[in-house]
């Protein structure tokens, strides 16, 4: 019995169709039953992405699910809330913990409130923001939301909707921190938050009792902007999401559009993209390593990491003219073919980086202070990483195999041999070493590809105006911080109807509270460094 029949027998009221993925549509009242069935009976324990939708008449949510045994095989669950005035849906955050923050985001963007979600504050916007920006009828009048230069007090009250026994819904408020707690604000401007993240941390002496993350200090409304941009224009915004995996992000969106158009991509392009992806990954991991060392007080190590990163940046510079934001992938190929010296440069870089990795390990990994500060600290179990969908090196350090390069091979990854770096300890040291090991794994991939770049076109001609056929598409790549997905819903226009980027960083922030409890302040900083979140990617 295949999956579709199985689901049909378990959920007779659901509509099931085979689009890009198996899509199950359920009514609002059947959502809980469908979610529980999928989670418990069919083993879909990963909620890859939770997307709010505005279908014009009704609001709704799209869930992308998979099982941890096969993270690449995705099933889509859809539901709708017809009431536009006061839309409410049941939460799924008791089934998939990652839903909590995502549902808060959907509330801020669409106004859908989730019954039984313990925390119904707006995630990315201020509590007093007027309107729901991702709704189609959003009033963008700047008069409604004027620029406010006065800092408001942060409220520690959070509302929640509790379902009573008789089926009615009651709003309740509870306190996150009590008055007696010693609360320290780490961020928004803090050297160790890697951008503008805001943690409210309750302390007991040096030990951490609770962490409450506040997001949105760099929420730029990229998803809304994408809805008014054509597909080629949209590409530029993806680079600026997780700017350290600029190239991978753009690879994902290009792939998504190309697959929707059913465009045949030349092998040469695939090779070039893969090579650039891996170079970006090394640069990103090097920066993560540097910043983590700096956060732990080793400033010299930071400078060494940045020095090696510059070598990759000069390769980027020669190839596409950009250092950080490469703007290299475009729909149908790459902006410009690689330069004749590219292979030579990369081949010179590989042995250099291998040598430097040894040095980095010698000066930092082997250091007794560093080792003691990382080992056994910030333990994240495999269950937690799956529940919160912490993918990427951080999740793999806990034993959650989520590498999209393995599970949904794209580009030239099906042609190379490489190991998914897996560890089981799940502590800060495991996350730290997973990154360093991934650098050498990436070097191996590059080594296998660099001499075999096939001849051919570097760009396929596309139509001047790109219109995607009606439908929903989602493509995945393995970015430096985890699985990055691009979801495009098209109505056949030249602009997309809805675009959602699956944030690789949001789960990382979501787990901070749980894994840093009872650790010291200094550990929180080290844990943050080892998780390596990039805030614009979380806030989008």
């Amino acid at each position, binding site marked *: 019995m295949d999956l579709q029949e199985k689901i049909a027998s378990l959920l007779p009221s659901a509509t099931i169709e085979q689009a890009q993925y198996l899509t199950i549509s359920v009514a609002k009242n059947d959502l809980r039953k469908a979610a529980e069935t999928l989670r418990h009976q069919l083993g879909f324990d990963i909620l890859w992405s939770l997307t709010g939708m505005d279908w014009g008449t009704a609001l709704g949510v799209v869930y992308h699910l998979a099982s941890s045994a096969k993270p690449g095989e995705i099933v889509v669950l859809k539901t709708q809330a017809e009431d536009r005035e006061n839309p409410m849906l049941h939460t799924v955050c008791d089934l998939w913990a990652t839903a909590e923050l995502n549902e808060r985001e959907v509330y801020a963007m669409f106004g859908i409130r989730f019954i039984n979600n313990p925390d119904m504050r707006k995630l990315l916007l201020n509590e007093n923001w007027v309107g729901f920006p991702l709704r189609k009828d959003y009033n963008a009048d700047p008069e409604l939301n004027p620029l*406010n*230069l006065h800092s408001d007090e942060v409220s520690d009250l959070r509302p929640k909707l509790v379902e009573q026994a008789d089926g009615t819904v009651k709003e309740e408020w509870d306190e996150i921190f009590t008055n007696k707690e010693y609360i320290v604000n780490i961020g*928004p401007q803090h050297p160790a938050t890697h951008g503008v993240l805001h943690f409210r941390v309750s302390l007991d002496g040096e030990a951490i009792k609770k962490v409450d993350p506040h997001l949105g*200090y760099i929420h730029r409304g*990229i998803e809304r902007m994408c809805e008014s941009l054509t597909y080629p224009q949209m590409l530029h915004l993806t680079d600026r999401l997780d700017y350290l995996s600029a190239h991978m992000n753009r690879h994902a969106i290009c792939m998504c559009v190309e697959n929707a158009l059913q465009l045949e991509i030349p092998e040469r392009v695939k090779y070039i993209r893969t090579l650039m992806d891996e170079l970006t990954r090394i640069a990103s991991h090097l920066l993560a390593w540097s910043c983590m060392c700096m956060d732990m007080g080793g400033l010299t190590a930071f400078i060494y990491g*940045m020095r090696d990163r510059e070598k990759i940046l000069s390769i980027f510079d020669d190839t596409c003219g950009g250092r*950080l934001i490469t703007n290299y992938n475009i729909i149908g190929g790459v902006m410009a*073919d690689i330069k004749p010296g590219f292979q030579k440069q990369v081949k010179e870089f590989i042995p250099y980086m291998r040598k430097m990795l040894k040095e980095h390990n010698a000066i930092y990994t082997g250091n007794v202070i560093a080792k003691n500060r990382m080992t056994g600290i910030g333990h994240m179990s495999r269950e937690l990483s799956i529940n919160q969908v912490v993918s990427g090196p951080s999740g793999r350090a806990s034993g959650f195999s989520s590498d999209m390069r393995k599970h949904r091979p794209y580009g030239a990854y099906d042609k190379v041999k490489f190991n998914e770096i897996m560890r089981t300890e799940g502590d800060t040291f495991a996350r730290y070493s997973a990154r360093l090991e991934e650098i050498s794994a990436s070097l191996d991939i590059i080594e296998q590809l660099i001499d075999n770049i096939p001849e051919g076109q570097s760009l396929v001609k596309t139509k001047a105006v790109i219109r995607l056929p009606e439908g929903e598409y989602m493509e995945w790549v393995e970015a430096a911080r985890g699985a990055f997905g691009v979801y495009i819903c098209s109505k056949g226009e030249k602009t997309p109807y809805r675009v959602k980027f699956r944030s690789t960083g949001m789960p990382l922030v979501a787990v901070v509270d749980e894994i840093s409890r009872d650790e010291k302040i200094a550990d929180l900083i080290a844990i943050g460094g080892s998780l390596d979140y990039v805030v*614009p990617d979380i806030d989008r």
Partner: protein
Amino acid sequence: MEVKDITLQGKGTKDIEFKDNEYLEQYLQELRANGVNIFVEKLDMLINWGRGNSVWPLTFATSCCGIEFMSVGAARYDFARFGFEVTRSSPRQADVIVVAGTIVYKMAPVLKRLYDQMADPKYVVAMGSCAISGGPFVKSYHVVNNVCDIIPVDVYVPGCPPRPEALLYGLMQLQRKMKVENFLPDAQKAQKKIRKKLKEVEVKQ
């Protein structure tokens, strides 16, 4: 790929004159020609020399530009050469805030507060097109379109993100600007006079 010649307002790159802010030095010369007390002038020069060569930036970055800001601090570009040695994490001890990245509505009050917490004399460098004009996010509902709506800006460094060389150039322009400042009251009077005169000239033109 062939690189086309860029045209700006109908002019090609060859026709556009690159102005290196020479007006700063002209301004200083004019100030001196108008007669300032020699003692006051020398003292001012000393003060400006001290300030201009010791500009400590605040560790502040919101997005992509922050990475390039870090690159400028690291080995290859090393802004310590110019006296930007110590990046301070506490705004009380910093001299310049490099607004590296997009400023959104939620961040605006924080930025304002950071600026207010800095001790005088303080300077602002708007780094990257986001801080200057909203950059690619100019049409977003949540992005402040010019950082100068929040705090006064001394130097704009365009780019997305600006290359480290560009930021270094921008910071050096800030140093030049700092060197034509006037600290002592006597010189300030003379400065006002010249400002008036310059305005008159502008009006005539």
